[in-house]
C-alpha cells in the first residue's frame, strides 16, 4: 500500500478513536441543520422555508462558516502533535517522504470533511422531493464547499507545521483563514482600482460564490488549487527543516 494511504487511513481512524470525529460531526450537523432549516427563526429571512425555493443556498451559506471553524479543529493536531510527542521522527525514518506525510494528513482531513458533508445529503433529498431542485447548482455548491475545505485544510496543515502547540496552530489557521474568508473582500469593497481588484481576486468568497452559482470557471479552480499547493508546499518545506 502506498504510504500516503497508510497515513490517511490511520489518521482517519484516530479521528474516530478519539471522539474528535463525533464531536465535530455532531456540532457541524447540529449547527448547519439548525440554521439551514431554522425552526426557531434565529437568523430570520434566509432559511430554506423562507426562501420558498427548492435549493440549498441556505445550507451552503451556513456551511461556508461552520466549515471555516471546524476545518482548523481537524488540522490543528496533525503535525503539531507529531512534533510534540516526537513521533514525526518515527514516521520520517520509515519509508515515508515528507511530501507523502503531508499529503496523507491532507487526505485524512479531506475525507473527514467528505464524511461530514455526506451526512447533509438528506437535506438534498428532502428538498428535491419538495420541489424542482436545480441539480447542477446543488452539485456545484457541494463542489465549492469541498474546494474551500481543501484550501483551509492546507492552510491548517501549514499552521500546524510551524508550531508544536495545537492551540497556536488552531488560532493561526483561523487568523490566516479569516483573510481569505472575509477580510480581503471587505478591503476590496473599501478600495478602488487595480489593488481592490487584486484583493477581490484573492478573496475566497468571490471564487466560492462564483462556483456556487453553478459556473465552474478555470479561474476559480486555479485559485483553489494554488492555495492548496502553496499551503502543502510550505508545510513540506517547514517539515524538511527538522527544527
Amino acid at each position: 500500500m502506498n504510504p500516503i494511504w497508510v497515513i490517511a487511513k490511520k489518521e482517519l481512524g484516530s479521528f474516530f478513536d478519539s471522539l474528535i470525529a463525533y464531536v465535530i460531526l455532531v456540532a457541524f450537523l447540529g449547527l448547519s441543520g439548525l440554521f439551514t432549516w431554522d425552526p426557531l427563526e434565529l437568523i430570520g429571512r434566509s432559511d430554506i422555508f423562507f426562501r420558498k425555493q427548492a435549493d440549498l443556498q441556505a445550507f451552503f451559506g451556513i456551511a461556508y462558516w461552520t466549515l471555516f471553524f471546524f476545518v482548523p479543529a481537524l488540522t490543528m493536531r496533525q503535525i503539531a502533535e507529531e512534533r510534540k510527542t516526537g513521533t514525526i521522527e518515527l514516521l520520517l525514518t520509515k519509508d515515508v517522504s515528507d511530501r507523502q506525510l503531508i499529503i496523507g494528513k491532507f487526505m485524512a482531513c479531506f475525507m473527514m470533511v467528505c464524511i461530514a458533508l455526506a451526512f447533509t445529503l438528506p437535506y438534498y433529498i428532502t428538498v428535491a422531493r419538495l420541489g424542482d431542485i436545480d441539480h447542477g447548482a446543488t452539485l456545484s455548491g457541494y463542489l465549492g464547499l469541498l474546494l474551500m475545505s481543501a484550501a483551509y485544510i492546507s492552510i491548517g496543515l501549514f499552521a500546524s507545521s510551524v508550531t508544536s502547540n495545537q492551540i497556536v496552530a488552531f488560532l493561526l489557521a483561523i487568523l490566516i483563514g479569516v483573510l481569505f474568508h472575509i477580510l480581503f473582500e471587505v478591503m476590496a469593497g473599501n478600495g478602488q482600482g487595480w489593488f481592490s481588484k487584486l484583493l477581490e481576486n484573492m478573496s475566497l468568497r468571490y471564487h466560492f460564490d462564483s462556483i456556487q452559482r453553478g459556473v465552474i470557471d478555470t479561474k476559480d479552480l486555479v485559485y483553489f488549487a494554488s492555495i492548496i499547493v502553496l499551503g502543502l508546499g510550505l508545510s513540506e518545506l517547514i517539515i524538511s527543516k527538522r527544527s
Partner: protein
Amino acid sequence: MDIKIQNLSKSYGAQKAVDHISFEVRTGEILGFLGPNGAGKTTTMKMITGYLERDGGEILIGGQPANEPHMKKHIGYLPEHNPLYTDMPVIDYLEFCAALQGVPRTETAGRVREMVRVCGLDVEKHKRIRELSKGYRQRVGLAQAMIHDPQVLVLDEPTTGLDPNQIVEIRELIRKLGKEKTVILSTHILPEVEATCDRILIINRGSIVADGTAEVLRKQAQGQQVLRVRISGAETGAIAEGLRELPSIASVDILDPGQQRFELQSLPEQLSNQAVFELCVRRKWVLMEMIPFETRLEDIFRDLTLK
C-alpha cells in the same frame, strides 16, 4: 550490510554537533556508542537513519548512500525517548508500522506475531500503548524498529527505563539479532556496553575519542599492569623493599601498613604475577591476596570525556 562513515559533520548554527567523524561497522557487529549528554550520539544516529541532513561527509550503508529514500527500508530505528502513538492498540500500531515499511500485506500478520513473540508482548498485545508500563513500551519501540526485518538496527538508548530482568532480556535479544545484522546502540550504562557490544566507540564534543573493544580500551587507558597484593610473614617495610627489588616492578605503594596491602605497578609490557609469587616462596612470606586491578570502563570514560 556494513556501515561506512567518513568525515561526517553537522552543525546547529555555530555549534558543531558532529565534527568530521569517521568509523565503520561490519555486518554482524554490535557497536556501542558512548558519550556524555550532548556529545553528538543522537545527531549521528539521526543522520544514519536519514532523518537529519548531514552538512558534510558520507554515510554508506552496504555501499550505498544512506540518504537515498529506498535505504530507509533497510534500517530499523528506535529513537531516543521512544515516541509512540499512545492511543493505538499494540497490534494496530505494529501493523501500521509494517505497512509504512512496505511489508507485503500477506506477511504482515506473521511479522506482527513474530515481533510479539520475540519482544515478549503477548500478555499486553491487545492493550492500548498508553496503558503499558515503561518497560513494555520500550519493547513495543523495539518491535516497531524490527518489524520489517531490517539489515541495520539503530537503537538510541534501548534499555532506559527497564528493570534489571528486562535489561538482561533485551540485551540477549540484541545479541541474538546482532549475529546477522549490523547494530549501533547508544547508552549511558557502561556495564551494558561491555555486556552487549563487540566494539565501543566513545564520542565527546562531536569527535571520536576512543574506538575498540573493551579489552583494547582498557589496555590503552592503563598501559601498565597493576596488582594489589597482601603479604604477611615479615615487616611491612621489608616486604616493600623486597618487592621493589623485583626487575619487573616499576613502583610499590603501601596502601594499608596494618593489613600489609600493597599496590604494585609493573613496567610497561611486563607482568609481575609470577615474580611476586616466587619472591614470596623464596622468602617464606605468605601471599594472602593477589588481585589484578582492572581499570573500570567508568574511569576510561571519565578520562576521555572530561578532558
